[in-house]
């Protein structure tokens, strides 16, 4: 029982940004008035538990404002941005094999190759993944998560969920996240000597990530008339865009926007 609990905690540590990576199916063209005229059925939000979700959102808001944000702000004063970036890279690199496996499951063979090469280069040439020299060698970041795999296989999105601390997600995404994080756990979990350590590693990862995105949440809150609805819609819109730019490479050659690395915000930037 204790062991199971420990595995669960360590797996949290590898909890990816899955939720933001795959999208509702409708393509979007902003020049098309249909986009503004009606919210199409497939893009409509399925949120039957809005009441309870709003309660959790209020809790997350409290936790963010009074605990996580002050800690991350202090942390950002202690460590310079490039070190925090290196820590972010380290966690990112550890999940690379899972991305490769997911690429194979989605029949994206070229991406699977790129991801394995990236993992090799960054682990050995980037000092265990602290740097990302693979990008300069022409192997850009690719996203491939089990959530995308489920989407490829036709699993519907399910309902919208607000998870404590983790933030917005959907039923399918939360399952995909669990698969991704459990898949990576047996490889690494021997690292942490006890559950206390696992929790601190997990919180460390979150605080580090947040320290690179300070101010984003406050901005969003100040701008909105209903911050819950703003987060929910932002979550869906951002996820669609991110999925479009990571899934199909040859769709748009005109914008170099797609080649830029857009930091995938963790749940915090949107909850």
């Amino acid at each position: 029982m204790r062991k199971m609990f420990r595995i669960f905690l360590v797996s949290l540590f590898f909890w990816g940004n899955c939720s933001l990576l795959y999208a509702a199916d409708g393509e979007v063209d902003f020049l098309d008035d249909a986009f503004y005229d009606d919210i199409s059925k497939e893009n409509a939000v399925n949120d039957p538990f809005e009441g309870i979700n709003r309660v959790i959102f209020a809790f997350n808001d409290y936790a963010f404002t009074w605990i996580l944000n002050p800690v991350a702000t202090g942390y950002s004063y202690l460590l310079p941005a490039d070190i925090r970036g290196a820590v972010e890279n380290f966690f990112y690199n550890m999940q690379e094999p899972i991305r490769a496996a997911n690429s194979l499951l989605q029949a994206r063979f070229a991406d699977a190759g790129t991801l394995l090469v990236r993992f090799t280069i960054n682990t050995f040439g980037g000092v265990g993944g602290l740097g990302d020299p693979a990008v300069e060698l022409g192997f850009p970041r690719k996203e491939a998560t089990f959530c995308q795999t489920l989407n490829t296989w036709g699993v519907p999105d399910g309902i919208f969920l607000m998870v404590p601390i983790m933030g917005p997600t959907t039923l399918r995404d939360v399952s995909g996240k669990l698969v991704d994080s459990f898949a990576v756990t047996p490889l690494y979990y021997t690292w942490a000597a006890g559950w206390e350590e696992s929790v601190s590693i997990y919180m460390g990862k979150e605080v580090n990530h947040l320290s690179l995105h300070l101010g984003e949440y406050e901005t969003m809150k100040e701008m909105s008339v209903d911050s819950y609805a703003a987060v929910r819609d932002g979550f869906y819109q951002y996820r669609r865009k991110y999925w479009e730019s990571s899934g199909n490479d040859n769709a748009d050659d005109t914008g170099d926007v797609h080649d830029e690395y857009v930091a995938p915000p963790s749940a915090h930037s949107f909850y």
Partner: protein
Amino acid sequence: MKNFQHIVLFSFFFFFSSVVSQVSAATPDPTEQLKPVVDKVITLLKDRNFRQRSVVEQSEVIVKLVSERFDFYEMSKRVLGKQWRTLNSEQREQFVGLFTKLLQYVYIGQVDDYIYKKIKFSGQRIRRDRAEVKSLLIDGDKSIPVSYIMILRKDQWMAYDIVVEGVSLIMNYRNQIGTVLRDENFPGLIAMLKKKISKLEAGEKDE
């Protein structure tokens, strides 16, 4: 004879130049129209003297400048979606006024974060009377894509949406306002907007 040649030449020239001007009048360049306004706003916001004025004064100047290129009426209309048709002209006017104000204060409040970042216009696409002007907000090694969605009115391109990292501002507000209207009626929405605006006017942060 020479006179005749002149006339032919002149009329050719005239004809040609009128064709050229017609073409350029049909599709003026959206980036060229947008860029000066954005530049002007940024310069103004970097001006220390200007920033020392009250929020209300600042926003009045900014909105005058920005209205040249941003269509707040169109924005408000799209934000309300189907609801727009159910409102009478007085209600519409009231909503447009308040929503415009909200956008201004939000804009001024957030602008400190990005006036020292670099703005690079990175391309555009035009389809009939719609255009998307793409830009990048560059901060160190990070860059955030920001698109302006514009509509052609006569020979003026007017922006009615801003898309930041794939998130449409207008769609986002529309979803928020949708839930407010579902839970409360139109007067409730107006009251909420007024409250939000007076908070922003006073320069208060949300608790």
